[in-house]
């Protein structure tokens, strides 16, 4: 396995032999990888290759068919009760659509984990929440309901909530999905600044090429056919040097579908000539 730096001697996440799927269908088979402390680690791949499935298994939402996921040294698959709670407190998750609680204000959303797990007085919780919101540039929107925020703001608020308990690892599911390029770039900047200033480890699921190139330290490329990792490393390096057709297909944005028609043929095929009914002769 390719190791980038010394950080990998002490990985914060290590996944070993993870096999997972739904019902009888296996989506990923025997996947193993490590994530170094403070790394921005991006899981990439075309749609349907199991990126989100991998993420949901890494945060313990679904039990895998086989394998282990160690987060900061503790196996989330095997952990139960209090031990599991301790692991969960050490991670934060931003879901694809934000998953903010619609019945609470943004500030209350961010404060919820603090309310649940700390004995801080309400006043202190409010201050902490406001600080977290300011980290993602939403300090003015604390009293707003989630339904009044734009898509990008919802995701930023969700990151603030995920950071409420100062977790060591943040998981982001498709942060740029459904965002315009400018908003997406802002979100990338938030991620980079949090990683660099606070040393948070990020695990991001994404398929947005520009975002991946600007934000990732290291990527793994999943493939639906291989049911696992087909390439890993620095995305810029992969982009420039890799000759693997599967990697090329992703970075060159090549269509997986059969050759499209040439434009000339296309124009012909879909432009009807003057009509006469078909005749059949035997």
């Amino acid at each position, binding site marked *: 396995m390719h190791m980038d730096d010394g950080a990998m001697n002490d990985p914060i996440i290590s996944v070993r032999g993870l096999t997972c799927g739904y019902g*009888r269908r296996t989506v990923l088979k025997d996947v193993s990888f490590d994530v170094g402390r403070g790394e921005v680690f991006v899981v990439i791949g075309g749609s349907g290759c199991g990126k989100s499935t991998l993420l*949901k298994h890494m*945060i*313990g*939402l679904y039990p895998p068919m086989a394998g282990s996921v160690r987060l900061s040294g503790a196996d989330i698959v095997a952990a139960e009760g209090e031990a*599991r*709670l301790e692991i*969960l*407190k050490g*991670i934060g*998750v931003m*879901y*694809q*659509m934000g*998953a*903010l*609680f*619609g019945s609470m204000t943004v500030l209350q959303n961010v404060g*919820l*984990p603090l309310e*649940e*797990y700390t004995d801080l007085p309400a006043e202190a919780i409010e201050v902490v929440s406001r600080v977290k919101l300011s980290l993602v540039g939403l300090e003015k929107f604390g009293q707003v309901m989630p339904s009044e925020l734009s898509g990008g703001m919802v995701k930023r608020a969700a990151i603030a909530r995920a950071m409420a308990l100062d977790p060591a690892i943040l998981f982001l599911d498709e942060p740029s999905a459904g965002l315009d390029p400018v908003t997406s770039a802002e979100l990338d900047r938030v991620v980079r600044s949090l990683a660099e200033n606070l040393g948070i480890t990020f695990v991001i699921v994404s398929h947005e090429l520009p975002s991946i190139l600007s934000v990732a330290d290291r990527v793994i490329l999943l493939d639906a056919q291989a049911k696992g990792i087909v390439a890993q490393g620095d995305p810029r390096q992969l982009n420039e040097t890799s000759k693997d057709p599967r990697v090329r297909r992703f970075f060159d944005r090549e269509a997986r579908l*059969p*050759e499209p*028609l040439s434009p000339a*043929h*296309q124009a*012909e*095929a879909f432009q*009807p*000539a*003057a*009509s*006469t*009914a*078909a*005749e*059949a*002769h*035997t």
Partner: protein
Amino acid sequence: MLVVRLSGDLRAAAVARLWRPAMERVRAGDLKSLRLELDEARYIDGAGLALLVQLHAEAHAGGFSVELQGLPPRYRHLLDLALRAEAADAEAATAGGNANPLRERLELLTHDLRELVCFVGESAQVVYRSLRHPKGVRWPDVVTQACAVGVQSLPILLLIGFLMGLIMSFQSVITLQRFGGEIYVPNMLGLVMFREMGPLVTAILLAARSGSAFAAEIGTMRVNEELDALTTMGISPVRFLVGPRILSSLAVVPVMTLFFNFASLVGGALVMLSIGFPLVTFTSRVFANVTAPDLIGSFIKIIVFSLLVAGVSCLKGLRTGGGASAVGRSTTGAVVSGLVLITVADGLFAVLFYYFDF
């Protein structure tokens, strides 16, 4: 060898006319080979392509050969794509074909049962724990839910109660008048409302009004991944969402039953007043006949009913699948299961009360 020449435009309109005779001909079973001459076909649309694809499939099944002559290259490409898609489809069908439907149903059933048992256990634990450690309960949520369940449903509850009392007394008065027995209407009304109708109608209203809301709220949260978010925060959705709903139902529904009973008595009193009985006659006859065990029995009933309704509605919400239609399904399911459970439990109570002479 059958030779068919198709000329002009092969579009949906023409294909619709051609399809049946063409299929009848190739399915007759006496074909060795088929040649389609398409040199003069100028335009082929999706339906035309489907005809060619189907002819290929028939040839494969019937063991004859198909030759396409003069198919313009631009359509050759589309046809290849379509044939490849068909082949992939057939492959997928055979790959999934060895699943045993009976076994799958059974697995689903055991899964559902296990979930139900887990849910009942977890809810009971939540209620027990919140009674023992009231500090851990999210009381603001309980109050919000209590308002939604109780206070906001008061107008409709009072209206139904009043009308039911009025109608029931009115109908009984008409019948009993023939025997000069109108004076017994208050006795009947008090007994029926306190023992039977009060708990039953309140529970039905709870299922229809609040149970559906529970299922829809929690179901939408499931669809929006909010439940997943709770789980990864280490917060149990049962404790966080189901707990306050069950607690608030338990707290307000008995009070709602009392309101209902009161409204029905008002309705009954109106009828009795209108046929010339003084109010004091009505009230004294009602309260002389309704005893403490009647009231206690009605409280036991309504507490069980509200547990069942709130519990099953929340469970349906938690088990919502993906998409908007799933939320609709679980909402319907919550009301239907609630009503069924209420009726079954009411029947059991009738038997039990009779048996224990309560």
